[in-house]
């Protein structure tokens, strides 16, 4: 039973992706576009040349981290919809340190990254605390925290970091993740060292969840709070810790944008969607660190490749959003896929 369960966890996302792509092709066909041309454009948009590959990697980086953030909370029974706000505060904190501090790179860069971790962690701590002590549902608090983050950060950018400008100055090169070497390899794409940090973070998540006593406690609390309390675990502490770690991952995603891709922070007219996409990445990755890496790659590829579809095949970019939505739909309705697979297995016997 466990063996077939494992097989299902791998098969369901793959089948969902395939179904999503097929459904996308059908929609293209009915809307009068050529799906083969459309998908070729998508492929070229993501892998066409060194530049697009670099840009694809850049797009994957923050998605991977927000995916980890949501997945980590999920593993401990919490639904962190606040990754979005945690990204924004992490972004601000990283850029702020990048602008304000004057230090050699060995100190400056780690400091800026730490600032993003701390800011994201704080943004996760508040809903964690409210959940643990007062039983306020984390979904509601994190959604509200998203808005608090968005508008407060905009105000800080406008009034504190600049004088009524929309974008800050570029951060000091000593705090930048940008890499001339990687840019050189990829025809001056915005690819940066962040991907290394993101992959490392995935390993960290795996390690915490699978190997440490903290992970054992966090999972136990997620599964059954009563038994955890009976076993002598501090349930409140674990809920808060889970949200703090989750928030730190998302804050780090903000640093990827602030220190890597843009080197600045601008006033945002709306959410970055990195946090919300993280929910989808976590879901598709089955809340497993390795799965999240694969899911982030897929989403990064789809999103980056979509840019090429209007020029390459005349297909609107929104189509990719539809495909992503369909993939999520199929994962979420995995029950149906599971049922069909079981049917086939039965008949095969």
């Amino acid at each position, binding site marked *: *039973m*466990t063996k077939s369960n494992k097989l299902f966890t791998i098969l369901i996302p793959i089948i969902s992706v395939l179904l999503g792509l097929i459904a996308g092709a059908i929609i293209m066909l009915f809307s009068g576009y050529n799906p083969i041309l459309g998908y070729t454009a998508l492929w070229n948009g993501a892998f066409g040349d060194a530049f697009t590959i670099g840009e694809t990697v850049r797009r994957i980086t923050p998605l991977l981290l927000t995916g980890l953030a949501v997945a980590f909370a999920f593993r401990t029974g919490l639904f962190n919809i606040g990754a979005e706000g945690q990204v924004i505060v992490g972004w601000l904190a990283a850029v702020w340190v990048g602008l304000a501090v004057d230090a050699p790179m060995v100190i400056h860069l780690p400091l800026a990254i730490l600032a993003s971790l701390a800011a994201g962690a704080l943004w996760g701590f508040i809903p964690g605390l409210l959940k643990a002590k007062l039983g306020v549902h984390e979904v509601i608090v994190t959604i509200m925290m998203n808005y608090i983050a968005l508008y407060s950060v905009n105000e800080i950018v406008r009034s504190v970091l600049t004088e009524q400008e929309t974008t800050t100055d570029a951060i000091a090169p000593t705090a930048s993740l940008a890499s001339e070497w990687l840019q050189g390899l990829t025809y001056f794409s915005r690819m940066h060292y962040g991907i290394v940090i993101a992959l490392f973070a995935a390993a960290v998540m795996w390690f915490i969840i699978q190997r*440490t006593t903290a992970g*054992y406690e966090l999972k*136990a609390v997620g599964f*059954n709070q009563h038994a*955890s309390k009976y*076993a*002598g675990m*501090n349930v409140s502490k674990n809920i808060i810790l889970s949200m703090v770690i989750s928030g730190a991952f998302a804050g780090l995603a903000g640093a990827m944008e602030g220190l890597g891709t843009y080197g600045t922070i601008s006033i945002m007219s709306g959410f970055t969607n990195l946090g919300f996409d993280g929910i989808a990445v976590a879901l598709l990755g089955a809340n497993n660190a390795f799965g999240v890496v694969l899911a982030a790659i897929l989403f990064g590829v789809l999103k980056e490749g979509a840019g090429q579809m209007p020029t390459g095949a005349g297909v609107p970019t929104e189509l990719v959003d539809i495909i992503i939505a369909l993939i999520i739909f199929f994962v979420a309705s995995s029950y149906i896929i599971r049922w069909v697979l079981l049917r086939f297995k039965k008949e095969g016997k």
Partner: protein
Amino acid sequence: MEYVIEMLNIRKEFPGIVANDDITVQLKKGEIHALLGENGAGKSTLMNVLFGLYQPEKGEIRVNGKKVNITNPNIANDLGIGMVHQHFMLVEPFTVTQNIILGNEPTKKGKIDIKKAEREVQEISDKYGLKVDATARISDITVGMQQRVEILKTLYRGADVLIFDEPTAVLTPQEIHELIEIMQSLIAEGKSIILITHKLKEIMQVCDRCTVIRKGKGIGTVDVADTSVSRLASLMVGRDVVFKTEKKPAEPKETVLKIEKLVVNDSRKISMVKELNLDVRAGEIVGIAGVDGNGQTELVEAITGLRKSESGSIMLKGKNIKNLSPRKVTESGIGHIPQDRHKYGLVLDYPVGENIVLQTYYQKPFSKAAILNYKEIYEKAKEIIEEFDVRTPSEFTKARALSGGNQQKAIIGRELDRSPDLLIAAQPTRGLDVGAIEFIHTRLIEERDKGRAVLLVSFELDEIIDVSDRIAVMFDGKIDAILKPEETNEHELGLLMAGSQVSGAGESNDKE
């Protein structure tokens, strides 16, 4: 003889296992027919076949002599078969009548005719002496009453054959007595009953015939009048069962647990334990007898640190452990077999192995510098699985997949392995079959003989009388009396548990 229901040579397979293999059950009109078997023997599968939830691979079902094909529960309902589930299927905020008509609402011009339904429900209730108030809200009535609502539901839908699935598991002794009367009045009105159970005494008390299932196979049907408890038990388990667990007289030593003037409130701030005093000594088993809801749960939670005490003291080997955290309590030498093993005892989604270290994962050798050592964890698990005969495919299997008895064995193994000075066993055999009960009782007595103090909380009087060295009767938050098991009987205990003082021995049943 006329049979209302015949299930002939039923075979039901699931991938990998044969749940029912050639089972025949024939229910006579107007009889109470017991379906006896250990947990996991296939009783529920068989009844689900009858109820149309499963389709059998082989065999046939006849109702009133006619062959029928029951492909879904609606057909079973139409054939007059009703099931009283073990876990009630009731909507708490709804009234009795609303629950009963749910899914089958009588309407008048598109509006639910609740008045008419209430009248009908009340009529049925009065006819069978169920004493249910058709207008009461489910959340306001007792568990026993809720069960009667389930019975009413099947009667309202016109059932002639009622299947009771472990109906006494959730009831107090008084409620069991009333349920038996209800069953008898149902029979008097011409209904037939199938009683699924593994409680032998109940079968002897109310049933006419009994069909035994062992490991999915039909063993046979016996007339209850011609059999005995021990005969039924050996048919069910496949070997002889010792009922009265063998034990030497206790040799109590120093006091391990001393509770003085303990006051504990429940979550509504109502005192559930009221200035309670209790001693448990090393080398003895103290059984707390009492009807559910007299403060037993709160007392155990207070000792184990799961609930705050208001005042008084709890001394473990001379040290005050009142209001310590559960972890500190565990570390100071208490093992706790919790009343609700699914809610408290296990993380069901963790493998058996990881459940074995639920309280010790942070200690060496299971972890070092906060890194888990799975090799050590699973080795320990293997050891306990072997020693306590936990039947599981492997130590990596999720605890959820184990049967209740094996889950309980795993918990007991875990708690005993720490060699606690005091072992608290709350309802340790609830819902288990004779084989597992026998095992658990033997283990508790072994612990006592090793010189440990054991506090047993149970609603089963048999268990209390059989296992304890001293019986403390708990009523309304206090220990009302302390008795020796050989000097009392169920009747006296029953009266004490109901809060009355005993005046001489009444017409007492002999205690097994």
